[in-house]
């Protein structure tokens, strides 16, 4: 039986995975990710791809909200910046998709940092309202700047190709998006082992104390907005290339709320939480509409109100999680692990 985790070498202390159980779980996860696309049909592959994009976006938002403590309701707007930049560069200027994706990340990081400027004077709910305004302003620009974005009309993006292989079929895109998910995860986990990540956490816990300790609030808050928006822009650009079509309806305030719900239900300030939240919030509506189709024979009226049931469940899940388990799915997962780690003496 384990009474705790004790490190006896520096290598052990520096490792990302400490125990055998953690390493085994990681190995199982990797094997599952490698085998999954060969077993799944198109529907499940589409879901997996959506989850992959959502995980990237959720990790991005979590860096800002969960780790740095800056509440943002502008996620949808920042994703729109990423998606439209990538879409326009590829569709209008013929830039290769991977280059436009990279440019989109940097452009979104810049826009994110610009809208992060109010965070230097505002915090808490005032910042939330400022980012809400950012969301509305960005979306307004997208729908009204016809010459560049095409206004409310959909922007059609050519299919991404790599060495003659079309990348946005469900099967091919799966490899692309999950490779990027792993890259983003690895970068983000390590970010919080560096000076920058530690500064972010210090700002979240006590901004005044952080500045006394020599953390430049101006620099690090803007940096948090930029890094967070960089990944959010990646999620947006991937959406554009995966769907081959960009419309403003995909980036409304509802998207901002959805991503905020993902990280809160998953667990604020935890990378694992971003995964769990993204998976949960992507699967929830899918499961509900499948359930609706199953019970259609018994209750014929159900099919018409499935969207409302999804919306109601969405709201209810948020409320119940915040009241019953504010630390989210990540805490539940931890409780399960603790239970079995101490078994049979768990209490």
């Amino acid at each position, binding site marked *: 039986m384990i009474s705790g985790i004790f490190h006896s070498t520096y290598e052990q202390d520096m490792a990302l995975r400490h125990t055998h159980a953690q390493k085994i779980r990681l190995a199982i996860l990797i094997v599952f990710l490698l085998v999954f696309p060969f077993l799944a049909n198109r529907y499940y592959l589409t879901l997996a791809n959506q989850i992959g994009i959502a995980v990237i976006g959720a990790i991005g938002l979590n860096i800002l*909200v969960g780790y740095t403590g800056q*509440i943002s309701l502008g996620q949808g707007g920042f994703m729109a910046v990423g998606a439209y930049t990538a879409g326009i560069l590829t569709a209008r200027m013929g830039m290769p998709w991977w280059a436009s994706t990279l440019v989109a990340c940097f452009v979104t990081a810049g826009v994110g940092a610009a809208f992060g*400027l*109010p965070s*230097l*004077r*505002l*915090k*808490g*709910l*005032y910042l*939330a*309202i*400022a980012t*809400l*305004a*950012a969301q*509305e*302003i960005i979306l*307004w*620009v997208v*729908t*009204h700047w016809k010459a560049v974005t095409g206004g409310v009309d959909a922007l059609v993006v050519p299919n991404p190709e790599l060495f003659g292989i079309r990348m946005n079929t469900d099967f091919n895109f799966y490899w692309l998006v999950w490779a990027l998910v792993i890259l983003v995860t690895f970068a983000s986990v390590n970010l919080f082992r560096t000076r920058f990540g530690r500064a972010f956490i210090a700002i979240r816990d006590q*901004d*005044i104390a952080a500045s006394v300790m020599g953390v430049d*609030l101006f620099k690090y808050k803007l940096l948090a907005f930029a890094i967070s928006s960089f990944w959010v822009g990646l999620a947006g650009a991937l959406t554009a290339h995966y769907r081959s079509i960009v419309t403003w309806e995909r980036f409304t*305030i509802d998207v901002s*709320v959805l991503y*905020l*719900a993902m990280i*809160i239900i998953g667990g*604020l300030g935890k990378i694992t939480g971003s995964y769990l939240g993204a998976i949960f919030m992507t699967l929830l509506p899918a499961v509900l509409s499948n359930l609706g189709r199953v019970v259609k024979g018994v209750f014929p009226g159900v099919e018409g*109100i499935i*969207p*409302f*049931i*999804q*919306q*109601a469940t*969405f*709201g*209810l*899940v*948020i*409320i119940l999680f*915040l*009241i019953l388990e*504010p630390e989210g799915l990540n805490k539940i997962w931890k409780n399960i692990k603790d239970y079995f780690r101490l078994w049979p003496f768990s209490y």
Partner: protein
Amino acid sequence: MELFIQLTLTGLTSGAILALAALGFVLIYKSSDVINFAQGEFLLIGAYVIFAMLTQAGLHWTFGLVLTIAVAVGLGVMVERLVLRPMIGEPIISVIMVTIGLSSLLKAIVSTIWGNTPQAFPPFIPSEPVNILGATVGQDRLWALVIAAVLLGGFNLFFRRSREGIAMRAVADDQQAALSMGISVKRIFAWAWSIAAATAAIGGALVANIVGVGPELSHFGLRVFPVVILGGLDSIPGAIVGGLIIGLLEQYTGGYLGQGLNQVLPFVVLIVILMFRPYGLFGQEIIERV
């Protein structure tokens, strides 16, 4: 000149309704430090309940309005008791998120009961256009302005003169001091939420009378933010003045500049105010600088 008067009148009326929605918002923030993202849904529910009372139950509008207010008060108390009270002491982001979840839930309930398509509303306020200084304005808009003015004046009096109103201000000022003076803070929270829901319901009824009922009424929830930030989050006169200014601004930009600028300008104003004067026109200057 005609256009100017026309826009001014329309701006004042839509501003008055915005002020009603903002009033409830400010009230909740003032007494319990909660930002209510579900204010637009309170307005939506008010509009649909009175719609159901008038068309589906066939009641006279006076009974309908009274019953609607009763429903709204019940809803406000229920929301406070079931959703907000467990959140006392939780971080701001949780409180923000719980009201966002609430707004989604309420919207879904309304859509399930009444469907998702806009419907015409049987006007209980006459809507024949009248001529003022050469500009034509629907009579219902003027009545909305009058009703909103009466209500806002009434609330002003309520906060200055009545026992409950003064108690609410005391709680807003300092919860512990209020508790030690024998004021029940829980009851005051319930008061705040029920008054907020009731004013929003009246606002909803007024809007519905002008434009009909539909799910897009909940957009008022977002339009309230520029109003309360301009006026000051914790100021009731601020909500009124802010509502009128934003209403006028929307109409002037819509009328003179067009191109949908009226949808975005309030939010630009919001950011500018947050940057230079975060406590708004009349709010208390307690913003912590970081």
